[in-house]
């Protein structure tokens, strides 16, 4: 027996065994040996840069990655087994209209071995076969690859749904929308494992999909897909969903603005993490759309502390605007809540002591004209259903996204700025006007001495006066009783 014959025999045996194993779903790819004929083919086809030109001008690289081929489940097949008509001697010239036509033709090669009955036993294929009946033929290589056909299942029984799905979705599958956009269906298993949803199965979110069912969904665009997909979140997070329905983003979406963010735009999809603890991340998420405001915020006393010093005490977007039930900040109702928002931190001694800030600022506002009035407007809204007028709150003097520290600022400069803020409501006020507000200070002998002294005078005078008068009354009654 010549060496050549011996090789042929071994190859034949291997093929037999492989086929047998393959039927049972067991393939040990690495042990296969490449036939001499294939080696000859690969002499040319393992070189990069050789292309096939289609009739319509498209090209296809005829390069075959030898390593991938060696690892593939079909490594026991020689080139002519699939590429019929080709051999060491023959290399017929073929003509194809387009790349697509070629791929469809190529799929027929697979179907020579993989009969419809066999294919249909996998639900994912069942739907594809149904499509084929409608005239849309599937291209096997789109999912499975051509020369690199991998064991999709590895021949194992899946221990979880996730593994089953990942059997395909760890590959660069691609979804094409009606408008031509593409979505990579490849899912990063490691990101999934790190996400907060790592205990969930695929179909928990992708409902309707299972090892039996893989319905085809049709979306006009990637955005339509995202909006539709985010609907799945409400199945568990219904509380957040109802909150979102009250928010401006949902309202925008309902108005037809498809760019309004949905769950996944802020939270991500497969790589969802607990965003609550990552305050910088929150700000960055909002920046995706609200870039201008981000720029202003990043320069403010709060924003710069967060972004430069990674300070976790400062407010981020959602602390004032909320995360889900984001209200319109230009309404009176929102305005009325502003002092409370500021008070969340500025009346909290634990936080303010760290920065040497007074916690009396909220109290001093609430007990002054504007604060008292605001308090009543809130009550009126609640109890009389009678909204108040616009009245100065914290942000009217301090600003909103652009709040800066008043420390080290020249007092004259500060007053000049304040006059402008006063003029928003009180037209034509003079430079004297801002002094009407004691800048959150309690009147004292140093700060607003006149206010302090007048108050002190009355504090002493009123009790003395009343005591004197009561004493006279008592004496008068006493005298009257004695005289009787």
């Amino acid at each position, binding site marked *: 027996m010549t060496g050549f014959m011996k090789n042929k025999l071994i190859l034949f045996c291997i093929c037999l065994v492989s086929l047998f194993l393959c039927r049972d779903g067991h393939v040990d790819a690495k042990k296969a040996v490449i036939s001499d004929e294939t080696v000859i083919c690969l002499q040319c086809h393992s070189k990069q840069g050789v292309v096939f030109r289609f009739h319509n001008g498209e090209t296809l690289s005829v390069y075959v990655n030898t390593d991938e081929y060696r690892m593939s489940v079909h490594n026991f097949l020689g080139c002519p087994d699939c590429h019929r008509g080709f051999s060491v001697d023959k290399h017929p010239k073929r003509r194809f209209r387009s790349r697509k036509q070629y791929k469809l033709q190529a799929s027929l090669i697979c179907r020579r071995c993989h009969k419809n009955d066999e294919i249909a036993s996998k639900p994912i294929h069942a739907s594809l076969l149904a499509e084929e009946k409608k005239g849309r033929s599937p291209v096997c290589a789109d999912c499975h690859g051509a020369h690199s056909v991998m064991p999709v299942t590895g021949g194992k029984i899946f221990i979880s749904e996730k593994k089953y799905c990942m059997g395909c979705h760890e590959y660069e599958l691609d979804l094409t929308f009606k408008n031509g956009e593409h979505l990579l269906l490849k899912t990063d298993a490691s990101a999934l494992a790190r996400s907060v949803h790592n205990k969930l199965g695929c179909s928990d979110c992708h409902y309707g999909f299972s090892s039996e069912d893989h319905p085809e969904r049709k979306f006009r665009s990637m955005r339509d897909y995202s909006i539709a997909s985010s609907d799945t979140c409400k199945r568990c997070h219904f509380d957040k969903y109802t909150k979102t329905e009250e928010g401006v983003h949902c309202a925008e979406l309902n108005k037809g603005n498809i760019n309004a963010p949905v769950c996944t735009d802020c939270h991500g999809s497969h790589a969802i993490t607990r965003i609550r603890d990552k305050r910088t991340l929150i700000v960055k998420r909002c920046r995706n759309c609200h870039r201008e405001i981000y720029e202003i915020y990043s320069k403010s006393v709060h924003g710069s502390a967060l972004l430069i010093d990674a300070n976790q005490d400062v407010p981020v977007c959602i602390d004032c605007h909320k995360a889900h039930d984001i209200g319109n900040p230009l309404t009176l109702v929102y305005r009325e809540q502003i002092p409370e928002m500021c008070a969340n931190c500025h009346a909290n001694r634990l936080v303010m002591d760290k920065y040497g800030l007074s916690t009396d600022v909220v109290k001093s506002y609430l007990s002054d004209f504007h604060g008292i009035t605001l308090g*009543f407007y809130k009550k009126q809204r609640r109890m009389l259903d009678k909204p108040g007028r616009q009245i100065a709150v914290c942000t009217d003097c301090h600003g909103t996204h652009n709040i800066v520290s008043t420390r080290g600022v020249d007092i004259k400069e500060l007053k000049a700025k304040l006059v402008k803020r006063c003029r928003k409501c009180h037209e034509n006020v003079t430079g004297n006007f801002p002094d009407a*507000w004691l800048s959150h200070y309690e009147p004292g002998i140093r700060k607003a001495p006149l206010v302090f002294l007048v108050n002190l005078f009355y504090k002493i005078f*009123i009790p003395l006066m*009343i005591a004197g008068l009561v004493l006279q009354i008592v004496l008068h009654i006493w005298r009257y009783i004695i005289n009787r």
Partner: protein
Amino acid sequence: MNDIRDEKIRRFSNYRIIEHWVLLITFIILVLTGLSQKFYYLAVSQWFILRIGGIDSLRYVHHYTALVFLSLVTVHVIVAVSGIVFKKWRPSMVITGKDFTDAADNIKYYIGMKDHPAACDRYNYKQKFEYWVVLMGAIVMIASGLVLWFPVFATQFLPGEIIPVAKVLHSNEALLIFLIIAIWHIYNAIFSPEVFPLDTSIFTGYISRERMISEHPLELERMEGTDTGERGADIGVDGIEAKS
């Protein structure tokens, strides 16, 4: 004795009666709408303010009642000054040295160091005290109230601190006047044994001869005495007509 109790002597003209009514009504409204703002945190104030229809409605009522009060005080001062200057009215409300000795004498009488109270003229020292407290208080209230009502205008001439000063003045003076009226005036006009259940003279315009003898002997003496010149001046002040 019966006749001196029944005999009525005219004490106040109709102008004074109306003046007192207007003052009484405006005062009550101003106190209710004012003190509920001063003590805004009390449940009763909040109930009242919401009952009125909210803080803006309350301030509206307070401001326009204050305008009536302002007019009343202005007319009062003009009438008093012009009466004294042009009609030679007796300045019976002016505080004199006798008022201080009267007060001291009265205290002595109360504690038993004297056997009769001070003999007073048309207005005794208690009434004068009350009058001047209210008049001066009214001026403070009107001035500080106007500053608070028109802060932008006020700060065109005055420093900004005038606003919080006006606020503490207005707020404290209001409390002072309220307490003086509620304690001193209500005692003297209602609960004092001499007048209980009510001193009706400011409402009817008449006072009994008995009370004139005990409370305003000097005035009675002058009214019925020989000095007709002085008595004439008195009639001028308050339109007194002795009813015999």
